[in-house]
């Protein structure tokens, strides 16, 4: 199977939710990868939609860069709604 490609599989479990990474499959092409993913990852009606992506096509952030990439957003509390106190009288916003 060495020349079958490794594909990463993403399944959307319900309408309205994001696709979520669930694992990988081997397949000769994308169409087969979709079928194989369906057989493997949705045996218990776990999905309404599947994406497959060749693993080699994914660029991932490096864990070494976790601090420069993600820490700067930690102190930007003003991006979150809870940062803004409003008088009760204003009601729900």
């Amino acid at each position, binding site marked *: *199977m*060495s*020349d*079958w490609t*490794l594909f990463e599989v993403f399944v959307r479990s319900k309408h309205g939710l994001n696709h979520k990474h669930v*694992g*990988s*499959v*081997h397949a*000769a*092409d994308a169409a*087969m990868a979709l079928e194989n993913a369906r057989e*493997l990852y949705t*045996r*218990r009606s776990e999905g309404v939609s599947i994406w497959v992506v060749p693993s080699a096509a994914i660029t*991932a952030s*490096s*864990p070494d860069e976790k601090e420069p990439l993600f820490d700067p957003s930690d102190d930007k509390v003003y991006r979150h709604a809870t940062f803004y106190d409003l008088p009760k009288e204003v009601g729900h916003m």
Partner: protein
Amino acid sequence: MYAQLVDTGAKRLKTLEEMSPEERAFQEKIDAEIKIEPKNWMPEGYRRTLIRQISQHAHSEIVGMLPEKNWLTRAPNFKRKLQLLAKIQDEGGHGLYLYSAMETLGADRDEEVAKLHSGEVKYSSIFNYPALSWADMGTIGWLVDGAAIVNQVVLQRTSYGPYSRAMIRICKEESFHQRQGYQILLHMMQNGTDEQKAMVQDSINRFWWPAMMMFGPHDSDSPNSAQSMAWKIKRMSNDDLRQRFIDQTVPQLEFLGCTAPDPELKWNETRGHYDFGEIDWTEFYDVVKGNGPCNRDRLRTRRKAIEEGTWVREAASAYAAKQKQKNAAA
């Protein structure tokens, strides 16, 4: 267990002081129960041991399909046939989840499967025992899956993220396997003829000790356990897992109205556990070395499937390449 003898390459634990800064940071993360993810730095020994352990676990799922397949085509009615097929198919799926987790460590599935076929890497010794009667489908589900579940529940907390997530998914799906097996036996014991009841007892007699062996050698004979525990690849010792399994299994055995082929099996009030007899370790090592009743057959079947399928896989690749070319030209 499904991975019984995994060599970590380390006979002694390093202290934090002996570790390089990277190793120390790694160990501290593990001690803090932070999951290790594929691209994180990890010691080579950790990576190698995990590949070994996950691949053995995966191989066991795949080879484990074979004893049950032996009765799939002879299942006695619609209900049992559908249940058994769904269970066997889950096992194939679980093998694939595990290979998928293993591949995140940079291992190649085909290379690891080749190691299985050459005998270099093992699978669980339990699958080298033959399935000789329909009752074995019950016993395998109850005892063999039951033993596997005891181990896998603990492994949901293993330190490597993809392995842990595969275990969580597998445990969720496997919850029906053990019940399926137990129900087969219970139905025969409660509604069966004398012949069927004898079939159940015979099956338990044959599988009892091999199931106990699934947890591997005594802790005192497991030189690699300390490192695996420190890395949290393993989360409970062989003997502790075995005791937990026996404690939960004996009441189920009694409810069936069957006995275990172990005269020393009895409740120990002081310990709060069941005492049990000594495993025949000579048999265990013989089976691990390849001399079980079915070792040769199991490997032959798996090798043959992959060898005879070569032209099919090649055809699929050739077709995919042609289509790609056609689409590029269009």
